[in-house]
């Protein structure tokens, strides 16, 4: 939706003239205008599905991936006579988001946004309009820049439409099928101010916002499942100009990659347009990921007349200060603090690789597992690596994993009881099975790694059996280390840890 007073104001001549055609499908023109002359202005609207048990206005399950039309009732199907009742936990999560984004919580109300579309059971959407629950605020990005937040309001999601036909694309489809499981799922729409100045910053904003939403417990942040959806308001202006250019809203940005590509494309298109014709036509455009271009959806004149009016079936919402404080208190650590906490655990200056890993685990909400594992005695660096790689690869299962179990695996690896390969295999098994006893899984897989004592005993035996080679190795013939390792592996049936063998060889030689 386009709430009042969001995004850059439209300026310049009234929208008219020939329909805008973009640069060729291959992407932004290579020999384009001098980009340094132009400034990119972006405001983002992010729709976030809230992680509640039930829908916004009825007790139907809020679940992704269930059989079609199994989570429906008279309310979310819009059956005649049904009435909405607001989910208190959705309000709570909206206030958590507001608190995390430094917004002010205000008394709010719901409106009806009227338009016909088959995925919307009542043919109106219940949304907050001129009185949103969260107003004002900002998000600080890891690079230190701040993006202003206009508002973050509650609304209901629509059902899911599948276009059927030759290509599955809208315009070529023969008919469509509708599943209302998603209809009525609670959303918070977070509208940024037009403070973003590049596609890279836009990506950074969404990445950081996503981490905030995950950290507050409001969202699972899964863009690929559509629980986070982004629309971009893009305009350009000459560097140093005060007024904003005419904006276009770009829809269908389903990944960070499409967000960045779409903004770059749109900026190039608009710059070319202004340089050629002096104006941009205000319109809504659709990002075609395959073609790598935006295409016009509708012009300002064709904009919908939504006939907003106060939703008479709901009463105003005015959370008391005690509830607001409770919600704010439940926000917990924000991503920046979480990243600092991990850095503290790692000790010293983190490597660039570790910085990336820290962003991954905080973004996925896996950092609590690491903190718990370290508290249990696991080495921090190893816990970070395993979380950023093995856990992040199966995020759904990882978030359900018991922290103690994860800690045990990392500890075993840290003590050399499991090799890296074995630790990965045990983790994979735990994630697949939804938990278990790491020691038992290791035993079942025959991963009984040698204790340090028995490794020393085995190596001692090997050395005694090969005195000539040992003498040469002791004299500095390094390549014989491989020989001894091989002998140890043969003696232990491959259960010894290569690194541990190398260390023991060094110790024995000195």
């Amino acid at each position: 939706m386009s709430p009042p007073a969001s995004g850059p104001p439209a300026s310049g001549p009234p929208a008219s003239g020939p329909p805008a055609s973009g640069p060729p499908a291959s992407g932004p023109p290579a020999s384009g205008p001098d980009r340094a002359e132009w400034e990119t202005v972006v405001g983002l609207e992010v729709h976030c599905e809230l992680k509640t048990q039930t829908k916004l206005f009825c007790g139907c399950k809020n679940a992704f991936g269930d059989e079609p039309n199994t989570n429906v009732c008279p309310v979310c199907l819009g059956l005649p006579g049904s009435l909405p009742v607001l989910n208190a936990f959705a309000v709570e999560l909206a206030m958590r988001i507001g608190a995390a984004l430094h917004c002010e919580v205000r008394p709010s109300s719901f409106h009806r946004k009227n338009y016909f579309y088959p995925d919307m059971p009542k043919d109106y959407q219940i949304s907050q309009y001129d009185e949103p629950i969260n107003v004002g605020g900002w998000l600080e990005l890891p690079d230190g820049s701040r993006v202003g937040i206009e508002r973050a309001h509650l609304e209901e999601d629509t059902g899911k439409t599948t276009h059927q036909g030759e290509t599955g694309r809208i315009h070529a489809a023969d008919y469509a099928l509708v599943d209302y499981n998603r209809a009525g799922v609670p959303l918070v729409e977070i509208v940024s101010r037009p403070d973003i100045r590049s596609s890279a910053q836009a990506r950074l904003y969404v990445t950081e916002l996503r981490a905030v939403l995950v950290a507050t417990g409001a969202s699972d942040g899964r863009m690929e499942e559509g629980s986070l959806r982004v629309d971009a308001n893009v305009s350009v202006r000459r560097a140093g100009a005060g007024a904003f250019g005419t904006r276009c809203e770009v829809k269908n940005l389903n990944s960070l990659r499409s967000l960045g590509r779409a903004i770059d494309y749109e900026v190039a298109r608009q710059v070319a347009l202004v340089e050629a014709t002096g104006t941009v036509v205000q319109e809504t455009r659709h990002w075609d990921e395959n073609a790598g271009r935006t295409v016009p959806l509708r012009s300002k004149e064709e904009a919908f007349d939504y006939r907003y009016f106060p939703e008479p079936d709901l009463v105003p919402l005015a959370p008391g200060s005690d509830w607001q404080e409770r919600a704010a208190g439940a926000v917990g650590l924000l991503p920046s603090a979480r990243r600092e906490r991990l850095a503290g655990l790692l000790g010293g200056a983190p490597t660039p690789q570790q910085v990336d890993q820290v962003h991954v685990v905080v973004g996925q909400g896996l950092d609590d597992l690491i903190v718990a594992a370290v508290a249990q005695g696991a080495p921090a660096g190893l816990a970070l690596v395993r979380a950023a790689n093995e856990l992040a690869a199966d995020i759904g299962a990882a978030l359900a994993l018991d922290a103690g179990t994860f800690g045990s695996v990392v500890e075993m690896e840290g003590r050399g009881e499991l090799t890296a390969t074995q630790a990965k295999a045990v983790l994979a098994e735990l994630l697949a099975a939804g938990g278990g006893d790491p020691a038992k899984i290791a035993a079942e897989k025959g991963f009984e790694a040698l204790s340090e004592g028995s490794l020393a005993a085995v190596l001692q035996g090997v050395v005694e059996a090969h005195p000539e080679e040992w003498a040469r190795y002791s004299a500095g013939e390094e390549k014989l280390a491989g020989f001894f390792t091989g002998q140890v592996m043969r003696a232990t049936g491959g259960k010894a840890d290569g690194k541990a063998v190398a260390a023991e060889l060094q110790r024995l030689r000195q």
Partner: protein
Amino acid sequence: MTADGSDSAAALADAVRRGERSARSVVEAALGGIAARDPELHAFLHVAADGARADADAVDEKVRAGEDPGPLAGVPVALKDNLCTRGIPTTCASRILEGWRPPYDATVVTRLRDAGAVVVGKTNLDEFAMGSSTENSCTGPTRHPMDPSRVPGGSSGGSAAAVGAGLVPLGLGSDTGGSVRQPAALCGVVGMKPTYGVVSRYGLVAFASSLDQIGPFARSVADAALLLEVIAGHDPKDSTSLDRPAPEVVRSLGAGVEGLRVGVCEELVADTAPDVSRRVREAAEELAEAGALVEEVSVPEMRLGLSAYYLIAPAEASSNLARYDGVRYGLRVDAPDVAQMNTATRTAGFGPEVKRRIMLGTYALSAGYYGAYYGKAQRVRTLLIRAFDRVYEQFDVLVGATAPTTAFAIGERVADPLAMYLSDVCTIPSNLSGHPAISVPFGAGDDGLPVGVQVLAPALCEERMFQVAATLERSAAARARAGQGEGRR
């Protein structure tokens, strides 16, 4: 016993509870009456004979087993066909809902069943409750029980006629701008609209959500009170349902009006036909006789009610009726794409009055006009509420006419929507303010057809309102015995 000699709902329930009459025999008698009389009246759109018999048998089983069968044990009830009934067709007298059987019961229906009442059928109405005569039904009009050439009023004309003709002792309707009170007045029965939020709207097919309330029809004030107590009370499924117990109206019936300050509202008298306004003044005199302090009062803001209502109600309706799009239930008229299918379906499925109101409401909400129409009507609504607040500092209740005239002829106002809308001029203010109001039969007009006197009360003052209504009913009965104001029988 009610005035016309038929059994009251209270008496029927007592007899069934004591095992003196079986619920089944009561229901069979009602079904027999409907079969005999309804072909002429057309009060019913659907008679749920099998279900009614089964429900009656279940009540009798409870009586035999010594369980409490509820305060309305075995009492036949007729429901306006915009109340959702599980498995029983609910059409709103619209082609667009032909054949739709809701998968759930309205909260009032659940409460009726829990109280032992037996739903015998669904009654005719103006399509989606939009109208004042029950002529806007896709199945044709209901006829007045005393004069088949006249309308029973509307939009709940089917329930009013069914109760008025003695086919059932109780009925439910919905009142958005007077749709219970006005047909009650025209048919000579009691009809009331509760304070907004006293009765759950869950399962009432919405017309104008901020105005709609479900209300009872009965042949006596006492029966209306009994029915209100059963259907009222908090419902967590309706966000606008008030979190308080049902008003204790039955207990208040005998309290009289001694010392009550009654305002005769000039705006609810002046614009009515002379035979109607005469009855209202007589009613006021009777209240004074009974000890009330009666004075004339003017509430000029009421005159703005009609216009405000005909902007707000259609605006909400235009949105409430968007869902009839041919996708999920009801009628579909095929077309090559979904927008054309929506249009073809809605064009074929809605009657002219519904189309008029949808377009009027769409206009009142559309870009550029919201402020001048819908927005302004909402501010006028505030003015009206403030005026009521002011007048209720001086008065405990207001009285006036329920409808400007007695029952008019079928076809008389069909061609002129504005003339039809004026039928609601006396009832609309209470819907805009959310206050309760009741219509009590009080004598007849020059044509011998019933006149209703309306009692209006402040929010949540149903008890006081029923006190006054019961007094008026006793006066009307006494006058009828004395030969004053006698109408047709």
